[in-house]
């Protein structure tokens, strides 16, 4: 299992398009990616759950990667968060 934490810098947070992009990205990976904010934890391939996390600018989330090619998935997710969120 690999994980990293990330503080959201984009004004719109994990909303509409970024959430849709994240779901699409997570679906291409063979690892299971979960996002945790506070005491809520959801799979990165679950659009509605992701959006209702309500992760906005300034919030810190923890991204966990399990199974499959974890190194590759980790790099992928890190790059994704840095670029879009």
């Amino acid at each position, binding site marked *: 299992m690999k994980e990293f934490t990330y503080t959201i810098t984009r*004004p719109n947070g994990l*909303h509409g398009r970024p959430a*849709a992009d994240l779901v699409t990205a997570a679906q291409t990976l063979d690892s299971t990616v979960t996002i945790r904010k506070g005491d809520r934890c959801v799979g990165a*391939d*679950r659009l509605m759950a992701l959006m*209702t996390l*309500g992760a906005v600018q300034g919030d810190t989330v923890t991204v966990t990667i399990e199974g499959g090619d974890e190194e590759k998935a980790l790099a992928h997710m890190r790059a994704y968060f840095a670029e879009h969120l």
Partner: protein
Amino acid sequence: MKLMGKSLCPGVALGPIHVLPETEKRGKPTPAGTPEQELERLEWGRQRALDRVRGQQSAALEKLGEGEADIFRLHALMLEDRDLLETVRCAVRAGACAEDSVREAGETFAAAFRALNDPYLQGRAADVEEVSRLWREALSGAAERLELDAPAILCAGEFSPGELIALEREKVLGLVAQRMAPDSHAAILARAMALPTVAGLVPQTHWEGTFAALDGETGALYLDPEGETLDGLTERARARQEAAESLGCFRTGSAVTRDGRSVSVCANIAAPEEAALAWKEGAQGVGLFRTEFLCLDKKQCPGEEEQTALYRRALEAMEGRRVVIRTLDIGGDKRPPWLEAGKGENPALGLRGIRLSLKKTELFRIQLRAILRAAPYGTAAVMFPMVSSVEEVRAARALLEQCREELEMQDIPTGEVEVGVMIETPAAALIAEDLAREADFFSIGTNDLTQYTLAMDRQDPDLEGMYHPCHPAVLELIRRAVEGGHRHGRRVALCGQLGAERSMTETLLRMGVDELSVPVGEVLGLKAHVSTLDLSN
């Protein structure tokens, strides 16, 4: 056979009847098959809804670009969302029918979005509802309800605004509805589309294919008309058609009087969908976009995101022509169910229009922010109703600027917005010169101006014949408003019923009114009329 209903939109239609199947009604029990059958139907409906959304996505991509197509991509992803699917399937397994399961799950998820703290995310509730609707429509076959092979008179229990917008205008001759309120969104659209419409008749399935004549003036529907009835209606249909064709040349450009004065003729609209029709009819702008549709009949006023999207739609449909958005004119006799403020004995003189907005600023701010955010997509203006003092305009302007600053701080793009004042109280007309210093333009609302000047309720049937917008006192106030506005170089428009009164057009233009804004269906006729006038002597 002659049947009498209630006329909602004039015009004559002749042709075969097409009876539409009922749309799904809330609360109407749908017989549920076995859970296995329902699960299968559920999945079948989902696939069809997905096809439809993907179709919308590629159409939007082609016509509007990636940003616009994003929303449909989101809808497609929602239709594939594991949690939504599991919630729906779970209800079906427990014995509920597919439609009810989709509706309930949709409501649950929409409520979850509404409960969030962030206005953008709250706005996504509307997307969940849209997805739920698409899915249910696919299940009930309603999506195909309006695919027509040949032109017909459409008959249905009721029509939704969305359905009317989706109609191919040339395939629809007229509408017969069992239920359609005269001031409903659907009726507004039927009028804007100039569709002869009659309400209050119960469509019978055996009418299907019957040749019929619909008389939108009297509200009569004739099944298999013959002889004189048929001849008379055919002749009227032909005359209307000819008149409409002769107006076609006025669709482009502005209306120019014979002595060369260019007059701007704009449209009054009450829903964003009407903007596209206004554009087609050759309106040079939207002189009055009433926003009361946002809140009447609704449990709560839509949030900032939803409003932004609605204004944006109107602005984009007008392709750069100005759209004047009037802030909520509620209170008085127009009271949405959620409004608790003031129920005085004399609502017309009570807390309404800008007075209410300045008192309940939380609602007003949402609307101002949404207008500012939509503004980059066209030429937007905002207009305040029921103004009676300079202070009100200053206060409203200050709030607008505050909203702009807040948006800038949040890095949310805004656009330029002109600020207009409605002249509809005698007070505003009398202090027009002072108001002109604070406003970018005026728009004279003659309906309220007449009511307040003459102290006559325009809806009181006992005053019929006495209530008259051409009363010299009203005209004198209009003259003062124009003069006051022009002294500071402000454009003065007129958006009340008087603007569509052809016998008054010349008088108003001679007084110096710069722009007339009338119902969409009147635009072409008024442009034609203006071009026959000579104001040189």
